[in-house]
């Protein structure tokens, strides 16, 4: 600990982040690291000048860690250097010239010369002077003992390169990318590869920015353009292409573990994420319109909060939070509490790795093993996501979860829709109270000879069906007996067979009902009424039968006798074969009326007292203007009802009906177990990378989180993103572990360049397109990918970028290029994912099913949607060759390409030139010309060209970009 006056306060602060927030609220918060700065000028000097030198230059070999105390000397604590190593105390306060350390770093002749050349060699003079000055002033050193923060020594953590503020280079105004690279190349005495030729350059730039090759016309134009800014203008043209967002959006989707579906077996179901494409399209558009990266990040973390409320309703911002709803957690587990912790873990991991390049999720169960993050800090960040939700509720045990669907219709439109739906319901109630005859008569209906059907115009149900033949009729999934009548209710309305009594008398009614479609549906309810009096009722189950006889009904002339068939929960497949016979029982002559016989005799509605109507009302409406008006109004309203677009995404407030409903800090889950809870941790940020903690007044605090992540003060966000942009232009990043800027990650190969780019990025208003311009106009980007002669020996991994990196086309680029070559590429943008690989849309739009690890994308090293992918694998395996040789997709493109060749004019060589221009953007070689004369026997036959076209699509030249 430090000896500063505020040390006790700092200790308290660190012990209890809860108090930290309390202090924030009353406005006396002092940033943890600022304490040093304000506390004591000596501390300030040590922290800002001396500690970094000791950490970076000395502690590689001289710490108290096991095996790292070379010469017995530890320089990571004051007691360490006071005691000194094998030669005695290393530092004598106030006496620089007598201190062994100074003799060593000045490369004195007698003693050791430190640091040795293999550890970087002699220090710059300025650093030697600083150390002397420090010792001269008493060698103030607050490091009395080693402190651990998570998995890192506190001193090391404080000096960790990635957590230091971004350093604007001194020569920022004049520096260029090449000035940083060239100085290292010169030091290494490494020759640079020459500038790439123009064909290579255009092919490289076009693939890099759009994922597609240049057209023949674009190549000719560029070759003819000798102006100095020809290439700069190419970059501008490509950046303006909508294809740019489709290429660079996909890089982002790799990091967002993007999937269109969790599992092919439940594709598009309620438990799936079929709405994910809206997030994909948002990402693509964000790149295309060069949305400032800080806003791009804020929208994903807190778009729902930023975009709604106070009259705001920004659909894009709501969709942006979809990033958090498409994650990887085990849907379908019975243990809902575990699912909850897994959802949050996915969200913490996405936030920390994708935006910040740190592996905070490693601190879920225990403090981080290598980096300065504690499980307390993990739960501080987790609190933001426990206070938010992507599921409305958990389903009952055993059922899969259903992601929350967010209605994207504007609130006022939603209100109008609600009103319209309300009015439709009112109309339905009114209409149901009437009996409206089915007027439309179809003969040989449903493609079945002898089937008569009566319906309302334009609606399949409710319906009456009648078998006009003398044999059983099989229709779809059911059958109707000879001269049988079948009634089918509508989705919301009943169907009624009504009979108008011709004379006063005593009657009996005889009913038989059979649900003739047992394969589906859930049966019907029935009622028999005389005017309003209920005579009998019942239900039949799916496939069931009911019979009913009611005798001695006294009926006046004109009275209605109604048999009403009502739908149950479902109206589908409830075709009910109905026998309805009425007999007069008080007359001398036996008289009877049968619905079936009436239909058999070809009677029209009402002709002999029988009506078949929609509804179950008591009033028979034969030609009523009211009903017509209502029906017209209903039809108009129904046409205006829209299927509300929905998105998956975040909402504020924890999952309902859980302990986290509303806004809550998380409690530490010991060993990651939800049933072993420890302290509550206020929502906040990892202490090592944040001077301040949030003051959360209301809500989940995600807005504060979003602001902190995108603050220009945040040491990670800009560095992480410029590193990713660099990676996709050079095939390798400056920090070669783009998702891990921690201890197990790689150090930047060019730290000053990284900070230069990060500063430029922020200064440009976080413009990604500006970064492309900066990078692509550099000499380094435009170099040939063939290394200079001495590069292999000096820098086999090309860390110094003496040449460009040849790269294989990504899975998306390869398939798109095959389509492009065949002239089949459908340029349609956006929309729901396409499941069929044969559909010629860009591969970005082909459904990405997370559980599918054997399809096209998996074979060609597409991003594995189960993880946050920073670097795709680069494997060369036989299944890729098998796919290109034999898969129907590849064969189809080869065939189509051959049909195009046959349509070209000219001789064999001219057609070959057309091919090589289209596929490789260059004229043919002599050996290719001899190949064609040997391989193609008939210039005008597709079959003659096809094997060769197929081979050209398989070549390395087609698949690699120089």
């Amino acid at each position: 600990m430090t000896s500063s006056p505020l040390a006790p306060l700092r200790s308290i602060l660190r012990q209890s982040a809860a108090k930290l927030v309390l202090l924030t609220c009353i406005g006396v918060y002092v940033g943890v690291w600022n304490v040093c700065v304000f506390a004591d000028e000596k501390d300030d000097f040590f922290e800002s000048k001396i500690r970094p030198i000791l950490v970076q230059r000395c502690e590689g070999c001289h710490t108290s860690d096991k095996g790292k105390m070379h010469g017995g000397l530890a320089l990571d604590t004051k007691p360490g250097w006071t005691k000194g190593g094998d030669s005695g105390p290393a530092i004598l306060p106030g006496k620089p010239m007598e201190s062994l350390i100074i003799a060593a770093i000045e490369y004195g002749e007698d003693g050791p010369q430190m640091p040795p050349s293999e550890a970087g060699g002699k220090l710059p003079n300025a650093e030697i002077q600083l150390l002397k000055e420090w010792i001269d002033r008493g060698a103030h050193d607050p490091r009395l003992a080693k402190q651990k923060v998570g998995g890192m020594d506190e001193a090391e953590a404080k000096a960790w390169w990635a957590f230091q503020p971004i350093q604007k280079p001194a020569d920022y105004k004049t520096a260029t990318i090449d000035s940083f690279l060239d100085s290292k190349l010169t030091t290494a005495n490494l020759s640079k590869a020459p500038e790439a030729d123009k064909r290579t350059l255009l092919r490289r730039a076009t693939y890099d920015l759009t994922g597609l090759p240049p057209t023949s016309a674009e190549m000719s134009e560029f070759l003819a353009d000798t102006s100095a800014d020809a290439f700069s203008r190419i970059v501008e043209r490509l950046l303006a292409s909508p294809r740019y967002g489709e290429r660079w959006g996909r890089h982002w989707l790799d990091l967002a573990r993007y999937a269109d579906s969790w599992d092919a077996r439940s594709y598009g179901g309620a438990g799936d994420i079929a709405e994910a494409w809206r997030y994909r399209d948002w990402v693509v558009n964000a790149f295309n319109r060069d949305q400032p990266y800080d806003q791009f990040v804020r929208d994903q973390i807190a778009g729902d909060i930023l975009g709604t409320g106070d009259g705001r309703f920004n659909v894009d911002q709501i969709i942006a939070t979809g990033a958090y709803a498409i994650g990887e957690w085990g849907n379908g587990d019975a243990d809902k509490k575990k699912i909850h912790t897994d959802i949050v873990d996915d969200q913490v991991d996405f936030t920390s790795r994708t935006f910040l390049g740190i592996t905070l999720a490693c601190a879920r169960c225990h403090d981080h093993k290598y980096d300065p993050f504690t499980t307390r800090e993990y739960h501080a960040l987790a609190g933001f996501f426990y206070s938010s939700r992507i599921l409305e509720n958990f389903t009952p045990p055993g059922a899969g979860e259903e992601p929350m669907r967010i209605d994207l219709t504007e609130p006022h439109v939603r209100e109008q829709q609600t009103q319209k739906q309300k009015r439709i319901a009112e109309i339905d109630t009114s209409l149901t109270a009437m009996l409206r005859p089915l007027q439309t008569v179809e003969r040989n209906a449903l493609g079945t000879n002898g089937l008569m059907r009566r319906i309302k115009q334009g609606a399949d149900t409710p319906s009456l069906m009648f078998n006009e033949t003398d044999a059983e009729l099989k229709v779809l999934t059911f059958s109707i007996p000879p001269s049988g009548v079948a009634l089918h209710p509508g989705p919301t309305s009943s169907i009624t067979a009504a009979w108008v009594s011709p004379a006063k008398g005593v009657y009996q009614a005889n009913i038989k009902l059979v649900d003739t479609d047992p394969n589906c549906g859930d049966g019907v309810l029935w009622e028999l009424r005389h005017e309003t009096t209920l005579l009998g009722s019942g239900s039949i189950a799916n496939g069931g039968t009911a019979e009913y006889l009611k005798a001695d009904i006294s009926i006046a002339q004109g009275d209605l006798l109604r048999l009403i068939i009502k739908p149950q929960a479902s109206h589908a497949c409830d075709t009910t074969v109905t026998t309805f016979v009425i007999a007069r029982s008080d007359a001398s002559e036996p008289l009877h009326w049968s619905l079936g016989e009436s239909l058999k005799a070809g009677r029209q509605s009402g002709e002999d007292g029988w009506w078949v109507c929609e509804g179950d009302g008591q009033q028979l409406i034969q030609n009523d203007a009211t009903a017509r008006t209502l029906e017209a109004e209903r039809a108009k309203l129904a046409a205006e009802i829209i299927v509300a677009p929905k998105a998956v995404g975040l909402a504020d407030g924890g999952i309902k009906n859980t302990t986290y409903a509303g806004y809550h800090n998380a409690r530490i889950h010991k060993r990651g177990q939800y049933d072993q809870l420890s302290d509550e941790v206020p929502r906040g940020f990892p202490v090592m990378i944040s001077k301040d903690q949030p003051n959360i007044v209301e809500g989940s605090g995600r807005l504060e989180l979003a602001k902190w992540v995108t603050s220009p003060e945040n040491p990670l966000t800009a560095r992480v993103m410029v590193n990713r942009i660099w990676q996709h232009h050079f095939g390798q990043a400056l920090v070669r572990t783009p998702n891990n800027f921690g201890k197990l990650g790689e150090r930047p190969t060019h730290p000053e360049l990284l900070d230069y780019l990060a500063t430029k990025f922020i200064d440009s208003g976080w413009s990604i397109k500006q970064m492309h311009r900066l990078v692509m106009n550099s000499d380094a980007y435009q170099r040939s990918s063939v290394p200079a002669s001495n590069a292999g020996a000096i820098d086999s991994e090309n860390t110094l970028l003496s040449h460009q990196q040849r790269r294989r086309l990504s899975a998306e680029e390869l398939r798109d290029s095959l389509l492009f070559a065949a002239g089949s590429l459908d340029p349609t943008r956006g929309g729901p994912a396409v499941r069929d690989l044969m559909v010629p849309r860009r591969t970005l739009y082909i459904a990405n099913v997370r559980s599918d690890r054997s399809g096209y994308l998996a074979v060609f090293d597409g991003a594995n949607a189960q993880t946050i992918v920073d670097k795709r694998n680069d494997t060369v395996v036989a299944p890729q060759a098998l796919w290109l040789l034999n898969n129907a997709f590849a064969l189809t493109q080869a065939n189509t390409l051959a049909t195009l060749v046959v349509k070209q004019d000219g001789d064999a060589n001219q057609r070959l030139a057309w091919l090589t221009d289209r596929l490789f953007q260059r004229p043919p070689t002599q050996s290719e010309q001899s190949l064609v004369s040997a391989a193609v026997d008939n210039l005008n036959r597709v079959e003659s060209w096809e094997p060769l076209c197929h081979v050209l699509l398989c070549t390395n030249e087609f698949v690699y970009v120089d």
Partner: protein
Amino acid sequence: MLTNQSFAGKVNRRAALASFAGGFGMLGLAAMCAESSGGEPAPHFPAKAKNVIFLFMSGGPSHVDLFDPKPSLTRLNGQPLPFEKPKLERTKTGNLFASPYQFSKHGQCGMEISELFPNVAKHADDICLIRSMVADNINHNGACLQMNTGEQAFSRPSMGSWLLYGLGSENKNLPGYVVISPSQPAQGAPLWSSSFLPGEYQGTLVNDLKNPIANLGNTRFTATAQRQQLDWLRDLNQSHAAQRADDSRLNARLESFELAFRMQREAPEAFDISNETEATRKLYGVDEPVTDHFGKQCLMARRLVEKGVRMVQVYHTQTSKRSSCQLWDQHSNLATELPNNCQSTDQPIAGLLADLKQRGLLDETLVIWGGEFGRTPTAESGTGREHHPFGFSMWMAGGGVKGGMVHGATDEFGWHSVENKVHVHDLHATILHLMGIHHEKLTYNYAGRDYRLTDVHGNVVKEILA
């Protein structure tokens, strides 16, 4: 230690890529190791088994009806379970439900096995039966994931992928890890996923027994025409590479086409069981309606391990009567469905064991039988049993395990594993051990830490090692 960290530094990236060009993931770390050190690829200690055949009974086979007899269930049939059920329940089950099946002693060892497995029972002296298995997840998805990858929720490499990563495969013209599953089991591909391990360690799914591997041929070009195409391709690629001599990936890709061509010729033969003798087919129950399907799967598995495939996983997901991702999931009608499942697998499994033995392959092949969990000793909806991870049975045979042995026990009702508990992680550690791998030393660095199949758990079950 077999870790990607330790080798990554030694092996030139390009060289590694070139070696990946091998094919269906048959060149594992072992090959890289050999290349970098010039020595033989070495497991951590001498392996007892070379190959694994994992017979996976998808859905959760009922231990108390098959391998774990419980007289108390019969005695107290219909009574409540006399102790409190664990907190983790899917649905409330009813009272104790006696097994409708008789158990009897088999082999010299006198192992008690249900009458539903008369032919498997004949191999009792080869079987090492574990009656004390424990898993953590009560649903198919999570439990299947754990049984195959060690982890219940997140994407992790499957056991087969780890084996391939650690040991490589012995036949470079065939996939090193094959999954034979006519219908997709719960969760599907994540069960054989290589996850963050490189893609070549991914299991290769065979779901159509008649057309086992995708893209092995086409109808547009004859083999002769295709050979001609490859010759053109070689010429074109060689002249392209001539100006780019530094890049070994280009040559690797060229070779991958040649390998693909060889594979087209050899792989169909490896999967083709039509050349097997009548006697062999009969041994597996092939051509008998009830056993035909699983018999073919088991026979294909034997052909593959014979040709050096490292791991074959055989999912039982289809019978002559139905196809299901969870065939062994008897929530109801146990008395009709369980015998159907057993009839369709009994002869094929017994045939596989006999065939491996007569060919001298059983010693080097570890056969594993089991599902993702067992089933409750209590009744669900009167005629079935619920999911049950708290105590269940699995068995192994061959490849370095003691035959004729029963290890561990559940309580008197078959509810909790009470004696010599074997957790899934312990099972995994033991399988790796039998293959010559120390489970704590087979690691892969990903996203900032070293991962292994057994996470931070797992103990080798020493008692069952031969």
